[in-house]
């Protein structure tokens, strides 16, 4: 068994966990982050892509609204390369109560969320596909955010401050000495090695899995309710501005332009197991119907991919456990010292990706309080993370400009997403143990219309050519990639994506016969 020592162990490598490890490291703690899979593979890979302006909560949850507005500005400042400042509209669609817009404007004023009503004609001029029947439009500062850019940026910042970020390390136990936490036991699932980290503090940031993690410390009543929501990415930027329905939060009321796609979402259904999240075809239909309310031609566009995430809501007894939408989305920090008599462990739940930095500040503050380190102040709000030093916000045209510049030297491996070979190879070499899916999340390999039909075999070939992996592993990774892409493909298969899928099958199975490649004794899963 490998042994490590740290002041604090952070469990979970979603947006919250990376924010926490960065914050702790910047305050001078020796911090280790443990994530059972890759960074941003839990809820953070399964969200809507919206950098909230706060608008969504001005009526239903004023505190969240204010927090979102403040953090929206901070994230743009410290993680510019992850954010596109698309702006957003709240629109009253035919049949919605126009009076809600007045409540909205009043709520915005009260919560400090910048908002201004604009003429419907202006909204339609800026977003020509928008429903021409909308009755009112309010402009806000919504943006879109790439969750993977965000977590990797924060993780690199934490590493620069000395933190260790250990992915594919699954926590399997938490040890206590008397009334204190003393160590975390983890399994390095890639190497098959056990790791023990002696530590004085554990911060449980395991999102919907936080209850499972708490149970490792003998705390069996941390009740995290998983509120499943699905999202569907459509093949185009149907809009360039985030479009929200101006109603009390409901299903399918937001359309977010992210990179090359626009994403409609979401639903809210209580689930028991955050690892098993269905994407029912009926819910996909519900999303397409909802999309038509905002953009009448919605069904003419092509659904590309779908995914489902689970909101990690810490159960609040004031509302029924089945009504996840109305539980506090605000963050909750559980202090297990006062709650359960266990010192050195805190759990955080709820919150949003937009407010990840503030969540981190809260939980690390609470740790400092317990440790009596009150002079260590949070410093995360101003310093840009590595990669965002220029403070230039992301633009969807970035890659096109780079491809044009490099066209004589750097081939495009994924045409849909304009991913250049050099970028792919750099990512692969930095993370030689990565799967092609890990690479995909960071580079958008295979995320476009062809969903990997043309680029997956190229990428597998390059991984071998660049000596990152051998042919056997590349073959396994290719198979895993195709299998994983299918998770989000079959639920939306319709329209032109059927045609694309047929072409992909002609290539992958018809020409390459991938299904009869030499098969490893065990499928590659990591």
């Amino acid at each position, binding site marked *: 068994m490998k042994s490590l020592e740290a002041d604090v162990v952070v469990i979970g490598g979603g947006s919250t966990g990376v924010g926490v490890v960065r914050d702790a490291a910047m305050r001078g703690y020796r911090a280790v982050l443990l994530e059972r899979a890759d960074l941003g593979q839990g809820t953070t890979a399964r969200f809507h892509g919206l950098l909230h302006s706060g608008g969504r909560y001005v009526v239903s949850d004023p505190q969240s609204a204010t927090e979102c507005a403040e953090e929206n500005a901070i994230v743009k400042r410290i993680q510019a390369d992850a954010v596109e400042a698309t702006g957003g509209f709240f629109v009253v669609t035919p049949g919605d109560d126009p009076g809600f817009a007045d409540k909205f404007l009043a709520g915005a004023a009260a919560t400090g969320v910048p908002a201004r009503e604009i003429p419907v004609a202006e909204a339609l001029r800026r977003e020509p596909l928008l429903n021409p029947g909308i009755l009112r439009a309010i402009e806000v500062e919504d943006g879109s955010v790439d969750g993977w850019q965000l977590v990797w940026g924060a993780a690199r910042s934490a590493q620069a401050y000395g933190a260790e970020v250990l992915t594919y390390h699954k926590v399997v136990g938490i040890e206590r000495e008397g009334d204190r936490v003393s160590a975390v036991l983890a399994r390095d699932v890639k190497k098959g090695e056990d790791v023990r980290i002696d530590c004085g503090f554990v911060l449980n940031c395991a999102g919907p899995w936080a209850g499972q993690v708490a149970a490792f410390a003998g705390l069996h009543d941390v009740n995290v309710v998983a509120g499943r929501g699905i999202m569907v990415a459509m093949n185009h930027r149907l809009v360039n501005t985030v479009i929200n329905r101006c109603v009390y939060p409901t299903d399918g009321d937001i359309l977010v332009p992210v990179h090359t796609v626009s994403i409609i979402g979401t639903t809210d259904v209580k689930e028991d197991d955050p690892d098993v999240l269905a994407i029912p075809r009926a819910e996909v239909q519900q999303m397409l119907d909802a999309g038509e309310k905002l953009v009448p031609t919605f069904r003419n566009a092509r659904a590309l991919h779908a995914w489902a995430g689970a909101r990690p809501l810490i159960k609040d007894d004031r509302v029924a456990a089945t009504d996840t939408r109305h539980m506090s989305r605000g963050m909750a920090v559980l202090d297990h010292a006062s709650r359960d008599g266990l010192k050195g462990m805190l759990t955080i739940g709820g919150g949003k990706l937009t407010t990840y930095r503030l969540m981190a500040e809260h939980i690390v503050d609470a740790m400092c309080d317990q440790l009596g380190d009150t002079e260590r102040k949070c410093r995360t709000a101003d310093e840009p993370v590595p990669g965002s030093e220029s403070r230039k916000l992301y633009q969807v045209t970035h890659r096109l400009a780079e491809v044009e510049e490099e066209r004589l030297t750097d081939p495009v491996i994924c045409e849909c997403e304009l991913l250049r070979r050099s970028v792919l190879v750099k990512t692969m070499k930095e993370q030689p143990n990565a799967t092609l899916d890990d690479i995909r999340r960071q580079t958008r390999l295979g995320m476009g219309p062809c969903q990997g039909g043309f680029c997956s075999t190229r990428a597998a*070939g390059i991984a071998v*050519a660049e000596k990152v992996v051998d042919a056997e592993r590349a073959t396994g990774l290719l198979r895993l990639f195709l299998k994983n892409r299918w998770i989000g493909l*079959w639920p939306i298969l319709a*329209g032109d994506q059927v*045609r694309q899928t047929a072409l992909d099958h002609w290539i992958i199975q*018809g*020409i390459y*016969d991938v299904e*009869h490649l030499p098969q490893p004794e065990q499928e590659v899963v990591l």
Partner: protein
Amino acid sequence: MIDVVVIGLGPAGLSAALKLAESGRTVKLVAKGEGGFQLSQGTVDILGYSPERVTSPLAAISGLPGGHPYVGIGADKVRDAVLWLRDTVGDELLVGDLAENYVLPTAVGAMRPTALAQPSMVAAHQASSYAVVGVRQLKDFPAELLAGNLGCQVAWVDLPARKEVDSSAHMFARAMDDPGYARRFASAVAAVAPKGAVLLLPAILGVKPGTWRRISDQLGRPIAEVPMQPPSVPGIRLHDALLAKFKAAGGRVIIGSRVVGCKTAGGRVASVTVAVAGGPRDLRASDFVFAPGGFASGAITVDSRGKISEPLFGLPLTQTDANAVVGPDYWAPHPLFEVGVETDDAGRAKYDNLYLAGDIIAGAERWREKSGEGIAVATAVRAAESIMGGRA
């Protein structure tokens, strides 16, 4: 006066059109795109898996379940059709005797069965050992992956096809038809090629059928072309050969035009409407061959709610609800892609003079069982013979 209008320019449409033109019919071929050969491996499959690997494709036809397109045709007719295609394009383009499938490496290193192959490929069948040479500027040929999966040596040559680094197989193949370029290529390959009984090269050895032989001769050792993803150079060779024969037999072609409608009367198709420059035009004919492809070409559509249809003639399909035939297992069969139109024994559906050929016909997931060209050609020849027989 046109005898037959053929819709579709893939293996099925081209075969039907050629067969009919050779028999003296006046044939007009209409197609909106370039056809399925461009997207294929450029060999002729009959049956590769059923579901285990098939050695003798004709013998295996008898074991297929009812509803499979081959079942109504029978092994003899399938053989005749495929041999007709082979003999028509000649042994510069297709070889094989159908007794046994060839088993040829794919570009990622799987061993793939096929019934007829191009002479530039067949050295790879049952070779005692291989070597691989890739081209740096050709991103679609994963040479190390191929070599790794075959357990052989690999080397690279550096030879751009043009100034921009991104070049398709087709661009390389066109360059290769220039003897100077081909010579440079062969010299570069000779300088690095590892040992091995058969040297595997990307399928870029000329759009013209004979180019590969020059390269092989210069190298002085057995070589084999390995097919890649579209645009498929070997596929283009077959396409070009069949199209040229069709034109030589007097056939006329309208390419790049979509058939947008039809006029029917008394259980027969009277004409199809083609969207050509200057407005729609009706093409009347005695018979129609409908070989428009399947899901991949957009001939069978699925709307956003999952309703499957054939929009042009409104032909009945074996299943109309996609929601009922898609599933979560990527590796399992996908019954959605077996959906299509059932025909009578003459190959007709819905109308007395509408004959179907190729992917539009229900009953097989072709890329899985490796049967696309065989079904296409066999159903095309059936359509042509039905038409010829009916009017003889």
